């Protein structure tokens, strides 16, 4: 009975890591970026927070803010159960990253625990998104490609808000969202691995990469 109630009350978000149109394969597959640079990926993770759902009338469905760390290598992290009953949903909005208040108030727990490795210790603040791999184009040691993107201060703000509209008019139980790693290299600031194999700190490059990855999401399906 209890289980049934919980199930009935929740609306599920599912994130699928993609490379272009295909599911992302870590380590074993070589992909080509928009600038035709070959790259393999090892690690892909990002925070999302401030999820907002709007119904058909444009009304916001009340939701408590939570911080979710989506990790390509951790299946459980890719599914989020929102305490909202299945209904018609017109759009979903969320923030990629962790808002400034959580960056300046000491140590958090749960998904925001610095132990998760998404935290800069020498320049306090959360890493909002990480993409790591290798490329022969990289001149960094071991040809590493390492993008650690964050920055909450106004002059280096890498927080990005994503809005996705849901085309189907139907009762929504589950929204499946694709997150395409190749978008990191694409628009609006084509990213050259040769020029920038590494981004390890907030600043201009991090903000550009954040502009790019804000475009990585699209709705694959609604159930």
């Amino acid at each position, binding site marked *: 009975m209890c289980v049934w109630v919980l199930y009935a009350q929740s609306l599920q978000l599912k994130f699928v890591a993609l490379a272009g149109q295909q599911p992302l394969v870590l380590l074993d597959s070589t992909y080509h970026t928009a600038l035709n640079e070959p790259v393999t990926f090892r690690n892909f993770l990002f925070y999302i927070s401030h999820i907002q759902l709007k119904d058909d009338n444009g009304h916001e469905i009340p939701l408590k803010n939570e911080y979710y760390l989506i990790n390509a290598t951790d299946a459980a992290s890719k599914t989020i159960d929102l305490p909202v009953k299945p209904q018609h949903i017109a759009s979903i909005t969320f923030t990629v990253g962790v808002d400034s208040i959580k960056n*300046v108030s*000491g140590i958090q727990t749960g998904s925001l*625990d610095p*132990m998760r490795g998404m935290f800069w*210790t*020498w*320049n306090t603040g959360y890493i909002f998104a990480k993409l790591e791999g290798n490329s022969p184009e990289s001149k960094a040691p071991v040809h590493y490609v390492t993008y650690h993107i964050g920055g909450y201060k106004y002059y*280096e703000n890498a927080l990005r808000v994503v809005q996705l509209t849901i085309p189907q008019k139907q009762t929504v139980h589950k929204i499946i969202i694709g997150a395409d790693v190749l978008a990191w290299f694409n628009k609006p600031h084509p990213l050259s691995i040769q020029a920038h194999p590494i981004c390890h700190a907030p*600043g201009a490059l991090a903000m550009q990469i954040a502009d790019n990855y804000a475009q990585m999401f699209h709705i694959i399906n609604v159930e």
Partner: protein
Amino acid sequence: MKWQITIMIIVLLVIMATGFTIHSSKPTPLVFKIPPGWPQPTYNFKENPLTVQGFELGRKLFYDGKLSKDGNFPCSSCHQQFAAFATYDHNLSHGYDNSLTTRNAPALQNLAWQKAFMWDGGINHLDAQPLAPITAPNEMAESIENIIKKLNDSPEYPVLFKQAFGSKEINTKRIMQALSQFELMLVSSNSKYDKVMRGEASFNLPERLGYAIFKEKCASCHKEPFFTDFSYRNTGLPVDDVLQDMGRMKITGNSADSLKFKVPSLRNVAVTEPYGHDGRFFFLINVFDHYRKSMVVGPTTDSLLRNRLPLSNYEIGQLTAFLYTLTDSSFLKDPRFAPPGYTITPPFMHVH
């Protein structure tokens, strides 16, 4: 009827028992005293209320090698009480596997009033500070996961966490908050200077003259009562070609902040040598000579120091006398801050 009474009694007993445990595990509040005339602290004590048990746990952690990879580098290996919690006699401190830090370990005192930490102000909260030395390969070289495991495996820590925080759970936040509780209590406000300000003592002649010179030439940056205004400034130390430390610029990314470092407090300065962000000055006289002779004036050098800082030998003598009045021997010997179990401060420890 009988079984109903039995149940009633059991329920009552259970309620009494829970009441008792909740009561007995409540930690004892610890009062943080603001020295007279000092501003309100910056640290948000509401988020981490000081308690006797929390403070004692923090002290134990501060002195415990378990927080480092090989057990040899507790916080206290670099922050020694007799040196006002700086590293005594080391320009750079020693860390894991024969490594060195890239900066001089500052004194730890009056941290409750500080908004940002480290020479470049890169860390914005006292609770977040320990993550840096704990995980740095040239300091403690450990991971939080491993520390939590080691503490959970020890016979005493789970109980101490329960006493301090109400349950045996050991997590990142609790470890950091306990360390903060210890560090927040490190208040130095009982030097001769403080006693003079409170009317309990008086300066001798050189000290008095030195204080007047200090107020004229130094206090705009080394502002009372903390002897720092907590700003970042370039005082013309030429960049070390090995360390290549650009200071505040690394944090802000702004070239106007190149070679700026936090103005250090001068409290207890007589025991915190060597001096400067990389410890390049071994004695106070080297600092004075830097200000008056060897400063390299560049584009970001502080406007107050465009013409260096002329000081006569006579002024240096008086200034030195004054700076010595900033030594707070009750702080350096306070048994509350010594390793747990010590009733007097330990003899000089020298960890290499």
